[in-house]
Each structure stands twice: as structure tokens, then as C-alpha cells.
């Protein structure tokens, strides 16, 4: 089963494909620059305590994303 959730809801090690990015032009431009767009496969690496940044792996790169932005990036998780 596939469930859509945002990056902050994923567990460390979970894999998924980006399903939607609900952000303004600024967020879209930033995610696009690092190759994060609808359909990209990502792996969640970790999240920092107290709503700190979320770290994901995209291709061979790790990206740190602030909590607020991470909540607007939705992923279809493989595990559900």
C-alpha cells in the first residue's frame, strides 16, 4: 500500500517518491535546483530534535531541509 505523507512524518531509512511540493515559487526554485521534483526517489536519513531540519538523500547527495519546508514536501512512501 502506498501512503502519501510529508518528509517530517517519514521514519529514518524510509524510501519514497516525491508526490507533491506545496510551496511558493521560492521553495520550488530551491528544490528544483537540487534535483528534488515530483517523481524523484528520496531516502530519509534523519530528523533533528525539536522540529529541527530533516535530512534526506537524493541521488548521491544529502540535503538538509528546514522543518517548515519539509512539511510542504509530500512523498508516496514505499512501506506505508
Amino acid at each position, binding site marked *: 500500500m502506498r501512503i502519501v505523507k510529508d518528509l517530517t512524518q517519514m521514519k*529514518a531509512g524510509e524510501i519514497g517518491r516525491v508526490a507533491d511540493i506545496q510551496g511558493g515559487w*521560492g521553495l520550488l*526554485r*530551491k528544490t*528544483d*535546483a*537540487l*534535483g528534488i*521534483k515530483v517523481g524523484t526517489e528520496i531516502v530519509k*536519513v*534523519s*530528523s*533533528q*530534535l*525539536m*522540529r*529541527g*531540519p530533516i*535530512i534526506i538523500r*537524493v*541521488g*548521491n*547527495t*544529502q*540535503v*538538509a*531541509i*528546514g*522543518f*517548515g*519546508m519539509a512539511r510542504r514536501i509530500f512523498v508516496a512512501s514505499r512501506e506505508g
Partner: protein
Amino acid sequence: MRKVLLIGNPNVGKSVVFSRLTGVNVISSNYPGTTVEYSKGYVRAGNERLEVIDVPGTYSLEPNSKAEQIALEILKDSIARQNGIVVNIVDATNLERNLNLTLQLLKKEIPVVVDLNFWDEAKHLGISIDVAELEKILNVPVVPTCAVSGEGIKELVHRLPEAKVTNYHYREGERWHEIGKIISRVQKVSHRHHTFLERLADASIRPLTGIPIAMGVIYINFKLIRIIGEGLIGYVFEPIFEELWAPVMINISSILGSGGFIHDILIGRIFQGKIDFGQSFGILTTGLFVPFASVLPYVFAFYLVLSFLEDFGYLPRLGVLADKMMHQVGLHGLAIIPMMLGLGCNVPGALATRIMETERERFISATLMAIAVPCMAQIAMIVGLVGKYGARALMLVFGTLFLVWLTIGIIMNRLLKGESPEIFVEIPPYRIPYFGALAKKLWMRVKAFLKEAIPFVLLGVFIVNILYSLKIIDFLGKLTGPVIKSLLGLPSGAVAALLVGFLRKDVAVGMLVPLGLSLKQLVIASVVLAMYFPCAATFAVLLRELGLRDMVKSGAIMIFSAILVGALLNFVL
């Protein structure tokens, strides 16, 4: 002369390629945004001499930060003049993401060569790229290189003249789709196991393991800096000055007749027939002792440690861990980079604020750094002066500065209009630093310190002597005495240190030595000297980076908070 622009994503090794091409050394590190200014050099390709420009890294041709904006302006200018070639440096381990910029560049009316850097690392990661096929698709030369070892650089130079404006086309809006097609044709990835470095990398950004690792790293590095710094002072530099230089000075002193104007400027005061390098205050005595024997050892130790952390790739991870705290002061985690560089010297620290996206963040980070991050030269002098009273005395100085940093940051974050964006940054993989590159970087930084420090220190000592002999210090001391005495609890002689502090902070701290201050006075003087205004070199850079209006604002915050904190300390301690 035609220009070669090195353009690529942040942290793909542009500066290393630049050094290899031109022989000009520039600082390179393992985090995005090391290059915030552009550097120039020259290379000969065939019988043509070309100017090479190391451009700050950018992910796309739509800028997200000031450094990226600089990159774009250089490109636009070159297209307008029609005299440029772009060498698009691509991280072969991240081909898909990097092609995003490549495809944007290929739409511009400028000849392009693609350099696939980190070729060896891609091989280790099990990534194989069909170079000939990629070259066929993009219709521009593609050259694999490994810049740190120099492999492929000759070939790159050799093929520079083949750079051309491509006839390859794709529809705008289909860029990622197009990239996907290219990747499926040229790249194969074979499965492999995680390496030790990758597991360490993951462990250092998981909170449960990352925070203890960060504390360990910071502790070990402080220890290392102290051991190396103190070791060099105690076993190398002080003996050199005491055993070899002091007798020479005594000789010169007697040749000059043990007194008089020139004697006092060159040698300074003699104490019972001996030179006191801390107090004599001649250009050849204290003027040389301060930069070489007091400060240089710590500067060397600090840059050794910092350069290793930079090249290993640790700093962005520390930034992620510190992100929450940085948000309290209106910044995000990446702002620890200007702060860390500022600990070495505030000048590169001020330049590094360019990696921040908004003016608000640049103002906050530059102001906080200038107020509460003392440079290594100043730290070394404070350690020498206050350290005699033990670690608790030092904690008092640096703990106060940290509280000041936090408090002023929180206040600025509340009062300044606007919001600061969240962190959004690429975390580079850990890389084992290349010894040659590390040594070169350390040498460049030490050289930059000596070049910057020595003329200013000598000038500072010279001015001090002139001011004293013209009785200007006495006059200013009487003028400002009431404020300095009643508010800060310092003797009126401290005004001389505050005056010289505008020029150079290490000399200023050194001037406290002969005043015979109590511990309380030393703490107050050290804190106030750190806070009240940046040194001349930092001021010049800040003025350029912030503009006059914001510099005036920033300067007002510095002076006001320095007096306030000084008075508070005087009251509390």
C-alpha cells in the same frame, strides 16, 4: 583576451580546477559556498593566453544567494562581450543534478566545455559514465578529471579551443525529463556496500549520535589548538626571542645610547637592563613578539584544525545540528560557517556572510560576528593575559561574549523587520583530506595572516609611541577618564588600548599588560575591546558588504552594547 569562466554547482571542485589550471592558489574546502569572491589567473592553451575566472558556485541560473548572483553577473557580462568560454564543472558522482545547470548553460550564446570532475570518486561509488555518448548528445567536449590529483587537467586545457555553442536543443519546461533521458543513456550504477565514511557521515547527523560526536569534535579540537599553540610558544618562539633576539636588542639598545626618541620607538623601555617583550613596546621588541610569538602559534593551530574539518566535510553537519540555536538569533545552521571563519580572522568571516540568502541574515550574522566573535589574534592575547588566572577567568571572558552573542542576536531577531528563511543546503560527503591541498591551504592562511597582521601591528606600536610622546594619550585619558573610570572601572590609561583597538585588536590587548589591572578589570577590558568596534581591516570589508547605512546601524549596536555590557560587568563582578 578571451576569458574562461569556471561555472558549476557549489562544492564540485571549481577552485581546485582553478588552482590546477593557473597555478594560482585559492582556498578550497568541502562545503558549498567556499568561493564567495571571484579569483583570476591565466592559462596557456595552444598559443593563446586565456584569463581564467573562478566563479562562485551556483545550482541554477536563477540566483538564490548573493554569491550566486555574483556568478550570474560574471556570466552575463561575458555573454554580452562575446569573449568568454564556459568550463562547466560537473560532479560526476551527481551527474543528474549537475546536468540541470549544464542544460541551462547550453541555452546561452556562449561556447561550453564540460568537465566531469571527481571522476575517480565516481568510479569508487560504482558509477560509470559513457563520456563519448554524453559528448555526442550535448555536442560539446566532455573531459573527465580528478582535479585534486591533477589527472585530466592537461586534456581539459588541450580541448579548450574546441569549446562551442551547441546545436543541442530541448524544450524549456521539459528539462528534467530531458535529463532523465540523458542519464538513462549514459550512466550505469552498480550496487555496492556502504563505506565506513558514509556510515560515519550518517551517524554525525542523527541527533542521538550526532550531538555527542559534535561535542567530542569541539572538545578535541580546542584541546589540540591549545596543545599546539602553547607548545609552539613555550618550546619554539619564546626561546627564540628570549635566547637569540633579546641579546641582539640589548646590543642595539646600547648602540643607540640606551635612550632617546629613536631608541624608544625601536626598542622601547628597558627593565633593569632587560627586554620585557610584553611591556617594552618598541617596534623591534613587542612589535615583533606579539605577531610572531604570541599570536602566530595559535593562528597556525587554529587553521590547521579548521582546514582539516573543512576539507573533511564536517562543518555543514555541525551547522545542521546547531540549526535550532541559530534560529533563535534569526539565522540558520549554515551561519556557523562565517562564525567559525571569524574565529580565525573577522575579515574572511565577514566575506563568508555572502552565503546567506537575505540582507537581514547578512546584517545579523555580520553584526554578531563583529561584536561577539573575537579573532584568533585577539583570543591568543587574551589567553596569554587572562589565562594566568586559570580556566575560570577565561570562561568569564568567553562565556560573557557567548551570552552577548545570544542576547544581541535574539534582540535583533525580534526587532528587525522580516523573517529569516529556513536552512536548505546540500551536505557534502565526508572526504579524506588530501595532504598537499591541506598544507597549501594552511600555508596560504598563515601567509595571509602575516601579511595582514605585521604591518598593522608595527604601525600600531609606532602610533602608540607617538601618541604617548606627544602626550595625546594623557589628554584623551583625562577627557574620557570619567566615563571609563566610573562606568567601566578601568584606569584612564586604558583609553590608549581602546584607541589602538580601532587598528588592531591584538596590540590593543597587549597594551593592557603594563597597566597592572586586576582580574575584574582585565575581564572587562577584554570583553569591551572585543565588542566595541571591529579592527580597521574588518571595518573596511564590513562597510563594503553592508553599505554605509547598515554599517552605521551595526556600529551603533557595537558601541552601545559594549558600553552597556562593560558597565554591567563592572557592576556585577
